[in-house]
């Protein structure tokens, strides 16, 4: 026992990283099953995956990727490499198609598999349409076509992510000149991926929940039909507040299925068991002398986590970091209390008097805009009630801030 072990715990509860190998725990509502079933019906099934920040959407999508890999070509492009504050669905579709194509072509090359002609042609056509190959001098090949490119100078050939990062304004200008053509060409690339691999394609778009209000409304309300012709299955994350908007009904018609991932009420036995299991799978032993907190359930950590996975990990990580800073080799009550304050600190800046006032109201009296804002900031937390409906509660860390404000 000692600081070395606390440091090792700290690495295993990093709230910004996916679970370490073997540490995944299936949530009680079996979200992975729900997503897999929602994707089944047809070759272009669309699923909207909605949940508050930190509840575990990315973890579930990473898990889904592994789970479907035998039967599908699963593509999970790093869409946050694309600037979605300006780029739209068409750029996203083109990026995903080129990223997927590059992934498949690289895998084929590593196996010496030469059956890539059709896919290369389709992706080259899409690449030329969005003018993302002007960094090289091209010359006609034997067919008089322009499928061959020769680099004459400059930095190494960028991959798709780098191309979009380097050239997004130019790509967007090209897309604006013919968005329907670009989408058709991206669809052709997807079909070639499917044909080459002999398996249907599933596209996972993770990160759309971070769109700003204006961009989310624009994309999900006004431009969502731009993804209707995508010839593959799709799961897209979305901001939780979308489900409170008047256009949500229309949106779900376009997407077909909505899967929700909510926080788990820590006062429910099954939720408490799940949260404890998450900690055990991360290798933390509350009885082993590293935590001087009377056991996990009694420590207050599950209650303060609000049943939000990231918040659970933050509370533990901040407490461990505080203990290490204090030169201790176990997490004391004081280190936990300091860590808890640290975890709540951001809301001191994110919430103003109007927000605190709104939080103190009955939910039926809250304005839709402020409710949406409080949900997206995590100050309000969504739970499933016993009847399968929705309950909203104030985040326990924010509740502490409210108490402090009322005392001061």
């Amino acid at each position, binding site marked *: 026992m000692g600081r070395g072990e606390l*440091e090792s715990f*700290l690495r295993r*509860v*990093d*709230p*910004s*990283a996916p679970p370490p190998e073997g540490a995944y725990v299936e949530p009680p509502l079996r979200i992975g099953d729900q997503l897999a079933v929602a994707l089944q019906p047809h070759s272009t099934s669309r699923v909207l995956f909605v949940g508050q*920040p*930190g509840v575990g959407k*990315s973890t579930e999508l990473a898990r889904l990727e592994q789970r479907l890999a035998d039967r599908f070509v699963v593509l999970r492009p*790093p869409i*946050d*490499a694309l*600037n*979605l*504050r300006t780029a739209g669905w068409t750029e996203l579709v083109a990026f995903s198609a080129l990223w997927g194509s590059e992934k498949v072509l690289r895998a084929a090359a590593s196996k010496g598999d030469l059956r890539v002609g059709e896919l290369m042609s389709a992706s080259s056509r899409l690449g030329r349409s969005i003018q993302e190959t002007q960094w090289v001098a091209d010359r006609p090949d034997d067919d008089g076509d322009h499928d061959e490119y020769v680099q004459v100078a400059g930095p190494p050939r960028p991959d798709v992510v780098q191309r979009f990062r380097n050239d997004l304004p130019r790509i967007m200008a090209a897309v604006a000149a013919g968005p329907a053509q670009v989408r058709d060409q991206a669809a052709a690339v997807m079909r070639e991926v499917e044909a080459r691999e002999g398996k249907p394609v599933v596209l996972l778009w993770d*990160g759309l929940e*971070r769109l*700003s209000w204006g961009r989310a409304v624009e994309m999900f309300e006004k431009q969502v039909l731009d993804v209707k012709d995508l010839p593959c299955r799709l799961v897209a994350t979305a901001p939780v507040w979308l489900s409170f908007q008047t256009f949500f009904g229309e949106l779900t018609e376009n997407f077909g299925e909505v899967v929700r991932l909510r926080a788990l009420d820590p006062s429910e036995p099954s939720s408490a068991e799940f949260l404890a299991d998450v900690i055990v799978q991360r290798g933390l032993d509350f009885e082993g002398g590293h935590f001087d907190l009377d056991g996990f359930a009694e420590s207050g950590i599950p209650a303060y986590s609000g049943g939000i996975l*990231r918040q659970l990990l*933050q509370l533990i*990580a*901040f407490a*461990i*970091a505080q203990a*290490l*800073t*204090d*030169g*201790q080799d176990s997490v004391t009550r*004081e280190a936990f*209390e*300091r860590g808890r*304050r*640290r975890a709540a*600190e*951001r809301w*001191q*800046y*994110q*919430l*103003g*008097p109007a927000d*605190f006032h709104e939080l103190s109201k009955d939910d039926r009296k809250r304005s839709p805009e402020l409710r949406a804002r409080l949900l*997206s*900031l*995590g100050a309000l937390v969504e739970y499933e009630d016993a009847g399968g409906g929705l309950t909203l509660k104030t985040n326990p860390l924010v509740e502490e801030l409210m108490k402090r*404000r009322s005392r*001061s």
Partner: protein
Amino acid sequence: MTTDIVPTGWADDVARAAARGACPLVVAVCSDPSEARRLVGWLETAAPTFATVRVSNVSSMDVAGIDGDSQPSGKIYVVPDAAEGDEPQLRERWGAWEAGRDDLLRRLAGAGRPARLVLVVTRGRMPEISSAAPAIMALAEVITVGEEPFATSADDAELVAAFRMAEEELVERTGLTKAEVSARFERGDPLSFDDATLARWLAVIGALRHVQG
């Protein structure tokens, strides 16, 4: 934003969060630009004890300059002017970090020991920043930086005063800055202090940090 925000850490807490903290992103909130400069000075002096520190201005960086660094592993990147500029510039910059948060984290994680990014900001700009980048705020370790060691309770107050006295004495005697003194102790290189001075310093800082034994 509430007006009754009190500091929850001091410069050394930011150095430690950057070096051994719970999250690769640290948002250090200073009361004003001069305190922000002092913090950056502290990080440049004290944090190299833990890791290589690279201070880069926003203007010279592509998402914190990590792209241009072939060996980010274990480094601490400090962005001293993360809150400078007019409102559109601020929204643009933080909006870009927000939109590319996972990409940024991937690059910080890199291979081997993760790199850390400290974004130094001032309190007056926090409303714009927290509204432009809620996902960054949700993940980062946010520390409201005070000028002095942070006392969590009235019991700590005397220790803080004793710490400051011992610190000032050492600064005066050595001609070093406070950050340099702190860094020397962290490295186990406490100069040529006499035993009594050393014992006094270690007792105060040990008690303040609750170091046992």
